[in-house]
């Protein structure tokens, strides 16, 4: 009885590992294309799944934010050098009027 339980446990673990391994392995299935930053679906005329579009947008936003940080660090006003804290409007600052 113990041997059977052990066998079931081992086979479950191996299935989990197998599935996990497939999901992360490169060049295997649709998942790989979804996680790729530059999928090739457009070039062959296949319409993008919604998930793929969303992920592409998110990736682009992240890239944009990285670039934004880079540019800011080079082009920011000299007086803003060495800032360690983001400027935040205090809860009760007076707003300016136009």
């Amino acid at each position, binding site marked *: 009885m113990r041997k059977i339980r052990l066998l079931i446990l081992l086979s479950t673990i191996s299935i989990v590992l197998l599935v996990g391994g497939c999901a992360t392995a490169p060049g295997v299935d649709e998942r790989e294309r979804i996680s790729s930053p530059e999928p090739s679906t457009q070039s062959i005329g296949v319409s993008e799944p919604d998930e793929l579009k969303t992920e592409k947008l998110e990736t682009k936003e992240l890239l944009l*934010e990285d670039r934004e940080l880079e540019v800011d660090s080079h082009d*920011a006003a000299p007086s803003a050098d060495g*800032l360690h*804290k983001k*400027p935040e409007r205090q*809860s*009760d*600052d007076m707003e*300016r*009027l136009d």
Partner: protein
Amino acid sequence: MTTVFNKIHRLKQQPGWTWDHFLTEIDKCSAAGIDEKTLYSHYREPHKKPNGHLEKLINQLHDDCFPNPFPEDLNRLMRLYNHLFSCKKHMAKEKDIQDLEFFLQQQSQREEDLLRISRLHWLLGNIEFDRIPLYRDNGMRDQLALCKQQAINHYQKSVSAIEAHNQHAAQEETVGASHLYKARHNILACYLNAVPQASRAKDADIIDYLKASNYIAMSKQTLEVEPFQWTIARNGLRFSSLIENEVDVKWFFMALASLSQRFLGLDYEPLNHGAISDGDDFHWAIDNVLTSDYLASVKVAIQKKGNGRRT
């Protein structure tokens, strides 16, 4: 920024503007119109956030009835700057703002028209004003002092240009008192925002300017004409609290509560503003004047006034 709440009140205050007339004017602007209940609830509730459709219609009507006296190209430039400043995704934002600032400085030196000079300096003042929290929060005292002073100088030049314009302009072309009030409000805001909240009550610069500028009296005058300007009443309450003036605290609090009884709850949060109970600047007023007994007496007084009007 003038809120939709204020604009609805200002429009409604015009002679002959009954609710029926108001709705007819709205229908002229848009076939979709606005539901009467929606319009009325935005008239009554200072915390209500308007949707895009309502905001667009009210802005359009307001601009038609109360045209802005400043050149439209510079008003649009100011809007562009506001969008640029608030855009989180814009790359090299500070560099672009610096370029715009350079252009504005050049223009303001070449310009001869007083209203254009005024608006250019106003925008230059806004740019410096928006840098104040950055330097304050990072403890950059020298830069903070410089940008605060530059912002004040620009707003002061803007005020002087308006006053010079008004001296020579025909009556219908003069710039109204509300615009002068706004520029002076911005000067006071430079003094206030430059100081971390915990130190404001003891800051000599704020107190000195507050007394010298006659801000409290000007706020009361403005509220006599436009009692719906709750942000002015709220700021009046704030500064009366900072200088520990009980009479003025009561005056401005009554102005708020008369506009909406919701302000009787110190936890009430009007649109884009925190509750009075959360603001450090109001501590003295809350501890010494706005007690629960006092709030209850104000409520009774307002209800009596309301009953008196009905009978």
